[in-house]
């Protein structure tokens, strides 16, 4: 009986490691032809992974539905840019043309996290 519980516990740990750290999400949204809206709600940006083209300004908008102050700012640390998001209102943002690479964006406390994939 005990060994069964132990096995279950270890499997659970393995599951946590895989799900949160090893799993690579495939779903990437493109912000190209139409204006992409990122919904800020329940601790996640949706979509959180966004593909954009290098060398041209990026326009997109954020719609914050979470009233918690955590969700208030979105920061692009590599670009030294931050934007304040009003509740329940779209906030348009413009990023300068970017070099290819991956750019993180997150809230002040890094609980909301997303990534721009520029190529």
């Amino acid at each position, binding site marked *: 009986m*005990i060994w069964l519980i132990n096995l279950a516990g270890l499997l*659970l*740990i393995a599951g*946590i490691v895989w799900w949160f*750290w090893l799993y690579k999400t495939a779903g990437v949204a493109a912000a190209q032809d139409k204006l992409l809206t990122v919904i800020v709600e*329940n601790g996640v940006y949706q979509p959180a992974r966004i593909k954009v083209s290098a060398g041209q300004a990026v326009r997109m908008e954020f719609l914050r539905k979470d009233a918690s102050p955590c969700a208030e700012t979105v920061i692009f640390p590599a670009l030294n*840019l*931050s934007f304040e998001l*009003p509740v329940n209102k*779209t906030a348009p943002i413009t990023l300068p043309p970017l070099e290819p690479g991956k750019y993180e964006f997150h809230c002040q406390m890094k609980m909301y996290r997303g990534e721009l994939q520029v190529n």
Partner: protein
Amino acid sequence: MTTANSRTGPGVTQELLIEGAGCASCVRKIETALKNVDGVEEAQMNFPLRTVAVTGSAFTADLVKAVENAGYRATPAAGSETDLLEEKEQADQRYYRRLLRDTWIALALGIPLMLFGMAGGDMSIHSEAARWGWLLVGLLTLAVMLLSGRHFFVGGWQSVRNHTANMDTLIALGTGTAWLYSMVIVLLPDLVPEMARHVYFEATAMIIGLVNLGLALEVRARGRASAAIKRLIGLQPKTARVLRDGQELDIPIERVRRQDQLRVRPGERIPVDGTVVEGQSSVDESMLTGEPLPVAKQAGDAVSAGTLNKTGSLIFTATRVGRDTALARIIEMVKRAQNSKPPIGRLADVIAAYFVPAVMIIAVLSALAWINFGPSPALAYAVVSATTVLIIACPCALGLATPMSVMVGIGKAAEAGVLIRSGEALQTASRITTMVLDKTGTITEGAPKVTDLLPAEGLDEVELLRLAASLELGSEHPLAQAIVESAQSRGLNLSNPVSFTALAGRGVSSVIDGREIVLGNEKLMREQSIDLQDWVARAQLIAADAKTPMYLAVDRKFAGLIAVADPIKIDSAAAIERLRGLGIRVVMLTGDNRATAEAVARQVGIEEFIAEVQPESKAEKVAALQREGELVGMSGDGINDAPALALADVGFAIGTGTDVAIESAGITLMRGSLHGLADAITISKATLRNIKQNLFGAFIYNAAGIPIAAGILYPLFGLLLSPVIAGAAMAFSSVTVVANANCLRLLKIDSSTTAEESRA
């Protein structure tokens, strides 16, 4: 925020300000151009106000382009910062009330249950009646979870689905585990050994209540932390009085355009940046520059939005409006800096990214340890320890530690007239070991003035100055200008010089009112064989004080001595003393000769100076200090020392007035006083100390709390933390971080007292 690329939904109206529409026929052209844009349902222009209201779902940028193609200029009427702030505060207030409601609902169930347990009530299931009773409680707890704890569960689930985890995940898992275990005992008691049939509904309800309460307190404290930016935004008046077509109109501030003429009465705030065309007044600029004394304004002087007009009525022309005013740029810069992170926060960020899943793993390990090695009832202990670990871990405290302090510190600095560009500049400023000061314009005023008037017998000061100034009317030398300005400020009537001659490197001569006047150095006087008696010694004394003495002769007879100098700012010495008090090596750079440099250095108490430095080699001197291993701060006016400012570890641009666009500097001082340097360093040191306290507190809290929650003290002391205590600890740890950051607001900066002294 309406910026160039915002889009609205169908039926939503946005407003554009139109420039260049001079006649009524423009109205149709503009309206038609706008109606042809995709998504526009209606476009209606208000000609007197030069605004157009556009209804429909269209990109603002496309609307602006359409107007421009029609031959006019359009700018979106931005929702003002004030409106945005009000909107944000209302949203925060609603959120706060919701959290409080959630708190009371959860505590209304949790507190009675907890008291029942503490009073010796039986929290275990031993009879059929108890089962039914606890089933009812379990369902009530479920209701609390759905009502008050809904956001934890939805948020937790959403983030897990997206392969991330946050505080919601931990709270949802912790309270969910406690509730599920308790429900299993109620519904299927036979699955669990008799001793382990304890229910934990009170923990679930209490934790949900306490964490909500913690969040509510945090919202409150956060509001206080942004007090500085609120104060800046509050400086912006909502309306302006515009003179149009001979009428005075009160219009919303967003509608003021460049070149508008505006009137401000005494006691009113200046609405936009501009240049005075009429009137005289004194203006309190302390809110922007930290400079306590009001500044006199008359025609030709610049005024800044947000400053307070004190004594007279002014009419001025708007030069910068909307987002371009100095105030708006200061607000923008402070906001951006408040959201940037100093390098010290990076470790916490890295930890935060791995923190929550790691806590989940520790919770599982802890449960396994209890099941394998724990005393009976092992299962109950396992559930309690896992729940407590999940609840006590506080990623928020870790995540909040740096940003909250940075926000308060940078806001505090802005209140003192110090603009810090980024978190990185803040951190470097706190560690500076050497401060390089440019002499001209930094230690000194940067504009030469007449300092001494020593007339020879038979002449008075006024006549001496009048003659010298009349002579210098024809000259363009900076020292000459100082003499002329000094005479004009005394209201002297100057005579025009006849046959003006400049004698290169020696002086000038001319005929004034029929008399031959010569002004120049000792060499010139000797050439003209003018007897200087014992005045040479006095001139040498003056020269030793970093002043430039000039001899005046009338009809070949010595008539007096005039000294001109770039005066040292009144509080430079005190500010330099403060810098040294902070343990900073102070070095002065100047292009002047050694003697002048030495005199200035002596007067302000600087021991180390480098004289005769060409402007372009200032950066080299900074680099040389850096090679010595010093962390160098460089301060200058940001114009000819931009390369040195950029090269230094932190550049301090000493602004004159409210010119904040000094890109080469990490820190901009809005008033000329060097006290700003000491203020900036004092504030950054205090902020860094605060960040360290917060980070240390958050690390220690988690590093000690999690093992205790797992039961590490149990084998020694028989101590196992209750999940309710863990919930309270976790809720208040993040409140503590925010509260500690708020303590920074109480920091005393002692330049205000020295400013008082210098006024006296």
